[in-house]
């Protein structure tokens, strides 16, 4: 489900079934590296959308969580911890963080929930048909990780 009014009624009726939050993480900095940041953000948004399509009944996709590229990884990790605590209080058992940022890869084993680090592919140069196929293939590779996360009773 998405964070939009048309999905919220369904969410409220079936809250007990939606136990996972899906949060894309987007780095922002208006520096020389801007293009790379935008490309990473675009890619991660597309993969997140595809994941929402696949598992829409069990997860709630939140708007992207932005952070400054200048922030330290520890700070970002702590912030994700705060969010995870809040989700846990609301009865959610899982969080899936989506990122392409190489700097965040080291958080993989530190943050609560599942941090999926997906290397960014330059799909903006691809033909539109081939683009959606690439995204879907990428998604297929992530499925086992998500299933493994769900096998844990409670990961937060």
């Amino acid at each position, binding site marked *: *489900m998405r964070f939009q009014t048309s999905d919220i009624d*369904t969410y409220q009726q079936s809250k007990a*079934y939606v136990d996972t939050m899906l949060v894309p993480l987007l780095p922002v900095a208006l520096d020389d590296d801007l293009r790379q940041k935008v490309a990473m953000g675009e890619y991660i948004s597309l993969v997140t959308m595809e994941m929402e*399509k696949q*598992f829409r*009944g*069990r997860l709630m996709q939140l708007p992207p969580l932005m952070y400054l590229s200048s922030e330290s990884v520890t700070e970002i990790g702590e912030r994700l911890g705060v969010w995870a605590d809040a989700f846990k209080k609301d009865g959610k058992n899982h969080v899936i963080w989506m990122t392409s940022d190489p700097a965040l890869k080291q958080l993989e084993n530190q943050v609560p929930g599942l941090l999926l680090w997906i290397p960014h592919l330059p799909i903006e140069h691809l033909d539109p048909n081939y683009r*959606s196929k690439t995204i879907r293939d990428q998604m297929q590779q992530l499925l086992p990780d998500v299933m493994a996360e*769900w096998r844990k009773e409670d990961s937060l």
Partner: protein
Amino acid sequence: MSEKNHNVSRRQFLTYTLMGVGGFMGAAMVMPMVRFAVDPILQADAAGDMNELTALSDLTEEPQAFSLTYEVEDGWVTQTMEDTVWAYLSGDEVVALSPTCTHLGCTVNFGGDENNPDQFFCPCHFGRFEIDGTNVPGTPPTEPLHRYDTEIRDGVIYVGRPQPQQ
């Protein structure tokens, strides 16, 4: 030459003329309104167009996933959408099912559950469906998978929009 000798009096003639002209004017106003009111029905017809899925010879008794592309017009923008369709042959009959779980809309897979290789499986809440789309009692879904209308022309399968099965 008194008025009495005419079949139609001047007064009657004017009345008829006014009624006739008024009728046309009324119709001219009401017709577009009716056209607008009926428009959704005509539109629904257009959206019910059949789209090419695959060649009939590609189908087997085992359900396979085929991708279906179709165009959706939204205002002035035409978007190409892509859906997955699970299709197989049941005797001579073509069965095409939508992969959208009838519980909360996740995507189901055929044989996704090792313990039930002949069923559709929803990974979200472990909903299961028989090969014909019937939901397995005791799992979350409460109605069968939606089924596409199919049509075969020159060995090619065309499908419409998915419809609920009774």
